[in-house]
């Protein structure tokens, strides 16, 4: 162990690249964004210091509040079914008698390999009210008479946006949950079997409590990811009455479409506060449960 202590300052060299990289590509942009949020700058003229004007504007911006609401709604509509489906499938696929396990896992995981943007475009094409296959299908089997203009309805639009996210992530989360399930020692099941517990009982009283950590992990990542929804909803558009516009889409529109970089910077910090708040909240809730 002696030599380890002598050389221990070498550790700084090993970890230094991270800190240099973070300072340049992580921290500096964040600070620059903070600086910009106190300016008025449209990209055409030089920035002017305006104090907290952007933040005052943000506090009174009902459209921003709407995007928070939209993000929450889409988050709930996508993550609740998504977690249920992935948990169910994980439990099923963990059963010994199921055949073709690998095939199913691969098929379920596949949408995750395709980029979110592509998924968004696929859904927007499928649900196009004039040319999309969904309307055609529904009309052919006689469920509807006239095509439904999906993206004209706030709730259909949100449902579709949520659908994209469910589709993209359930396979991924399922794999993580299966990994958790497989870490449960076999003896536990054997003991339960001897006690005469039924399958649902085993799942309810043994399996789920034992993988609670993994479920929490999946849950927390989905909170952080869900609050930053962007790519897929962007492909579906803002929706009627901006009902599908998420917080990050708003940031993007303000900064890179309206060229209001300074206000966009304030929006970025607004989002930051909200994400921090919900992350802390989730952490608090999960801790009290333990």
């Amino acid at each position: 162990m002696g030599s380890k202590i002598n050389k221990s300052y070498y550790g700084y060299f090993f970890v230094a690249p991270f800190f240099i990289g973070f300072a340049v590509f992580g921290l500096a942009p964040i600070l620059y964004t903070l600086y910009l949020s106190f300016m008025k700058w449209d990209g055409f003229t030089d920035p002017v210091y305006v104090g907290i004007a952007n933040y005052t504007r943000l506090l009174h911006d009902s459209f921003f509040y709407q995007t928070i609401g939209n993000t929450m709604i889409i988050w709930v509509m996508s993550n609740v079914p998504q977690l249920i489906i992935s948990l169910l499938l994980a439990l099923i696929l963990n059963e010994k008698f199921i055949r073709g396990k690998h095939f199913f896992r691969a098929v379920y995981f596949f949408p995750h390999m395709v980029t979110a943007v592509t998924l968004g475009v696929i859904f927007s094409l499928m649900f196009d009210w004039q040319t999309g296959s969904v309307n055609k299908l529904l009309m052919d089997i006689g469920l509807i008479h006239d095509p439904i203009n999906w993206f004209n309805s706030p709730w259909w639009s949100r449902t579709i946006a949520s659908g994209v996210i469910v589709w993209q992530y359930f396979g991924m989360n399922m794999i993580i949950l299966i990994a958790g399930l497989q870490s449960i020692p076999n003896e536990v099941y054997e003991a339960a079997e001897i006690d005469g517990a039924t399958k649902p009982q085993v799942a309810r009283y043994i399996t789920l409590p034992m993988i609670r950590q993994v479920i929490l992990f999946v849950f927390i990542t989905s909170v952080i990811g869900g609050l930053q929804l962007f790519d897929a909803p962007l492909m579906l558009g803002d929706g009627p009455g901006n009902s599908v516009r998420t917080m990050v889409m708003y940031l993007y529109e303000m900064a890179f479409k309206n060229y209001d970089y300074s206000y966009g910077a304030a929006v970025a910090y607004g989002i930051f506060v909200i994400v921090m708040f919900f992350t802390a909240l989730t952490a608090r809730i999960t801790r009290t449960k333990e």
Partner: protein
Amino acid sequence: MSKYITRGILYLFMIAVAVTCLLPFYSMIITSTHTNSDIARKLLLIPGDQFMENYSRLKESVNIWRGFANTVFIAVVATAINVYFAALAGYGFSKFNFRLRNGLFMFVLGTMMIPGQLGIIGFFKLMESLNMLNTYWPLILPAIHNAFGIFLMRQYADSSVPTEILESGRIDGYGEFQIFNRLVLPIMTPALATLAIFSFIGKWNDFLTPMIILFDNNLQTLPVMIASLKSQFTSDFGAQYVGIVISVVPILVFFAFMSKRIINGVAAGAVKG
């Protein structure tokens, strides 16, 4: 008997989900082989013969293969950098007992909490002032700092890299970085592979950064090209579908061969994280 019914129901459910997963892709591929007027009027279930027609219209203004190659290039280089530097730092945190070790490690974990879009505007301006707009540097270099990767690598180094190796390396007269590159990296290969899969998928999906950083069409990445298909080919659905198909099918083929590895890698990474 009831056992078989339950199993039947389970299989049915699994197959239904599997069909839902694949049907949209099937529909994409079929639709891409028909004319615009058929796409607009009919439900298409069997392949048509218009794929090349649609493809040639797409090709005229969008070089989708180029986008494909660009994205592969960026993802591979960034993944290599990501994996190497994560292993470097993870190993550093694991095997060297320097004074600020715990504090710095907490800091690294803390950076994971920062939402990715917070600095995006500043990032854009900064890259502009560094003359890096319209280059791949802003897409590749940030891979140096990956907190999740460091975390993963430290876990692995703690459990699977024996300290004796370092000592034997030092006795053999190797420098510290030589020890890392020659002796430690090979041991860490399984963890490197896991992280590489995560990193590659992440980079492959990257959309916002290339969209704002790159102007040149020849440099553009696939997701950005796909995103602009809709505005470019407003009512030319055939061309849009072909673009999607081209962006999906190679992944499908790749995944068909690699699925076991990828899924096991993801599972391994998730359990560690």
